[in-house]
């Protein structure tokens, strides 16, 4: 058996129920681990030691009295710091919300507490989830646990690194254009972005509302499956919530049909090692009887541009409420209303956030809207339609999760280059499809490699089943 802090939810469940160790012991082990490694990793922004120990004791009492709340009872986890936690600072890794303590819990936080899970603390991210490297936090870089010279990815960099560095059993992140899948790939763990609307977004601080999804970062596809089951479902507070409905092509008994996107499988869009990993994954699936076909989708560069325009337009809108009036920081230096806004936002928002606000505002302005925003909406429809057709023929799409493995801290050259990290992830985001990143081997530099599976809406079960096949093969 692996060391305690390296185990999966399923393994902890057995041990906790058998009395091998208590939730308090387990929680303490993680708190110690955080103390030891986090100064190097930079995954946590807030550690709620007292709250975690109290929750663990309560869990132990319930287990002892036979009142266990189920699969997650007593299991320590951590959550990205863009989910509201009542009474615990929620900063979005921004100076703007450095002092913001929400008066309410996000739905997922509530559900996890009700399930008996123990919250260890809040995780680092690119400010307001804008970024793909984990470097754009106002409170420090998150580093890759495999090699601290490399980035953890982003924006759920803290979440991916925390799980990879054994600082939590699992983590909750948010995925707008790959923000769970890409850091999961960089850190060698499983990252699931469910179907849009399947898990309530209530209390998750919005980046781009029509794309945002609650995402799961776990040690195994199995853990992701059991978390999804627990967290999914409408809560009456997220009007975009969608109840499970089986869509797309039913899983054929005989053969799994998997599509690959040539534009993302070869050429110079994607690194050689990633391309090789996808090739190996194809081989594994073929060995398991899958039939592989190639599909044409609208150009990935166009999909990326579409994503950039839409997400920035919505982000600019969502970020407007941070005005220094009701909560968060307010500049000390103001003279009249406009300067309250300008100076507050100028002082307390980071560069990348400001860049996207400007970009999004520009895209939506009267004179640019038709040219940029409206054509992006059209392209999104085209992509959706094309993917719908794809899933009439195929069970899922196999692709890279990200065009490269983790890169060096400080290696990003330009904002445009930075956005290329989302290249492979945005199809699923634009179409609201479930997608999962599965660790698949190691690069020559010793960094994790991964592949991505994308399926039809609500086809997570199918997705997770195939993910387990790849997972098993990768670990063999």
């Amino acid at each position, binding site marked *: 058996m692996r060391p305690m802090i390296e185990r999966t939810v399923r393994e902890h469940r057995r041990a906790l129920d058998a009395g091998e160790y208590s939730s308090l012991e387990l929680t303490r082990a993680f708190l110690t681990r955080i103390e030891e490694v986090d100064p190097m990793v930079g995954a946590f922004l807030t550690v709620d030691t007292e709250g975690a120990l109290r929750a663990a004791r309560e869990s132990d009492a319930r287990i002892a009295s036979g009142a266990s709340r189920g699969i997650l009872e007593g299991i320590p986890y951590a959550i990205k710091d863009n*989910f509201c936690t009542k009474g615990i600072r929620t900063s979005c890794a921004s100076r703007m919300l450095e002092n913001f303590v*929400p008066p309410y819990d996000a739905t997922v936080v509530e559900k996890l507490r009700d399930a008996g899970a123990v919250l260890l603390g809040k995780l680092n991210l690119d400010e307001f989830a804008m970024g793909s490297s984990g470097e754009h936090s106002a409170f420090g870089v998150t580093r890759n646990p495999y090699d601290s010279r490399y980035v953890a990815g982003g924006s759920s960099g803290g979440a991916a690194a925390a799980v990879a560095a054994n600082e939590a059993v699992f983590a909750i992140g948010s995925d707008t254009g790959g923000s769970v899948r890409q850091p999961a790939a960089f850190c060698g763990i499983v990252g699931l972005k469910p179907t849009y609307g399947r898990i309530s977004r209530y209390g*998750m601080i919005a980046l781009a509302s029509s794309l945002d999804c609650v995402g799961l970062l776990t040690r195994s596809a199995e853990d992701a499956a059991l978390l999804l089951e627990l967290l999914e479902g409408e809560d009456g507070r997220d*009007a975009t919530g969608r109840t499970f409905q089986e869509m797309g092509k039913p899983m054929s008994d005989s053969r799994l049909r998997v599509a690959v996107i040539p534009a993302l499988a070869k050429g110079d869009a994607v690194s050689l090692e990633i391309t090789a990993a996808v090739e190996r994954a194809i081989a594994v699936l073929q060995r398991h009887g899958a039939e592989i076909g190639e599909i044409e989708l609208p150009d990935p560069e166009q999909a990326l541009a579409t994503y950039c325009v839409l997400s920035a337009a919505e982000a600019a809108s969502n970020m407007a409420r941070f005005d220094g009036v009701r909560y968060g920081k307010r500049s000390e230096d103001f003279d009249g209303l406009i300067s309250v806004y300008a100076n507050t936002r100028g002082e307390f928002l980071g560069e990348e956030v400001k860049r996207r606000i400007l970009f999004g505002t520009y895209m939506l302005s009267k004179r640019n809207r038709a040219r940029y925003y409206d054509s992006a909406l059209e392209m999104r429809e085209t992509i959706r339609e094309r993917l719908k057709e794809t899933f009439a023929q195929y069970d899922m799409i196999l692709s890279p999760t990200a065009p490269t493995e983790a890169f060096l801290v400080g290696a990003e050259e330009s904002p445009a280059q930075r956005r290329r990290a989302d290249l492979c992830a945005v199809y699923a985001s634009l179409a609201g499809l479930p997608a999962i990143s599965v660790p698949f081997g190691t690069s020559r530099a010793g960094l994790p490699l991964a592949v991505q599976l994308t399926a039809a809406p609500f086809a997570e079960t199918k997705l997770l089943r195939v993910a387990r096949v790849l997972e098993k093969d990768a670990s063999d």
Partner: protein
Amino acid sequence: MSNQAFEAVIGLEVHAELLTATKIFCSCSTAFGAEPNTQCCPICMGYPGAMPRLNRRAVELAIRAGLALGCEIAEVSQTDRKQYFYPDLPKAYQISQDESPLCKNGFLTVSTKEGTRRVAISRIHIEEDAGKLIHRGAHTFVDCNRCGVPLIEIVSAPDLRSPEEASAYLRKLRSILLTCGISDCRMQEGSLRCDVNISLRPFGSETFGVRTEIKNLNSFAFVEKAIAYEIARQTEALLQGNVPIPETRRFDAAAGKTYPMRAKETSVDYRFLPEPDLPPIWVSEEDIERLRTTLPELPDARALRLAQAYGLTVYDASVLVSEPQLADFFEAGAGKTDYPKLLVNLLLSELLRHCASDPFSSPVSASRLAELSQLMGEGTVNSATAKKLLLRLLDGDLDPRLTVKREGLAQVRDREQLLTLAERAMEEQPRAVTDYRNGKSAALRALQGKVMALSGGRADPILLESIFLELLSPHSDETR
């Protein structure tokens, strides 16, 4: 003179708060007048992560308004974010509807002295209200109680042509919204507000002139005054060869003038964004039919019915229905009297005069007022006594008929008795008699007044007048 040179082209945008118990996107109360910031939550205060949920009741009330105003109801419409920064707007965007309103292409029939015209209603959409700013000294405070109160915006076509017509449109609209229970339309509480768009053009012209917008008028009188002022101002400018600039103006009620707020060229770009937190609003044919069947009798139909059923004048009937509560009050009493027209008079000219602020908080019930009209109509009391009884009813309930009997208030209708009193009056006021005979017919009133005083106000005025006319006729001296 100058008003004849140009035709005014006026369109109105009316905001009405909907009569829902809770806000449009959360479950906070919409009650007016609470302590600041006691009726708000993370959702209506725009807290990070909070999300809106559409109050279906608000949609239903908006559809009700659409149906009452003859609109088409959209099977599917969407909400949009209208974005601008202001401290009373917590999210820095208002959730509204841009290109796909819930209702469109309706109309309202408006009557003025000039006649009756059909005014097109371009659209009705739903949106959320903003909060309120409270200025205290050098500080400004934000009260979020009103944030998220549901509104409809009713936009007329530029079909109105005069201040009177605009005012008539608003009054008619108000009576429909009240009748259908859509809004309480309390302008003093801001639950009904009006923006005016106005331009002038030469008579006969088909094109539009340059328009100005007057924002946030909160009484019908202000709407009329602001329009009249704006017509005069624009007329003068045009006559001097100047073209008015397109701008937003505000009305200063004290000065009776409008002043520029901001020019349209520098107007805000609202950067409308389809609201990604809310799915499209679907309205089924069944929803619409269900709502249609719950619509009450509308003001025009009700006025017609009241006029026909009770023999009222069209004017009286239309005054009654302009305040549905008045019409309700009338109808509650109308069955209890044989003299509905007298009941209307008592209601509109007497009761309303005494309690103009809120006639329905008065202790006088519809049946009591009906009893009074009955006593008057059957001749038991004259109108002076009826008015006195009404004053006493305002102080506390009593049985009018019993009181008349007990206190001997019944009208004196005995010819002999009145004749005696009339002769006494003529003896005591010979001057009036002479005056009358010399052609000053007004002198009769002094004599009538004298008899009223002598009879304790109870003389039957019609009988009395005929007695006097007889007594004062040129031949009366001889005959007697």
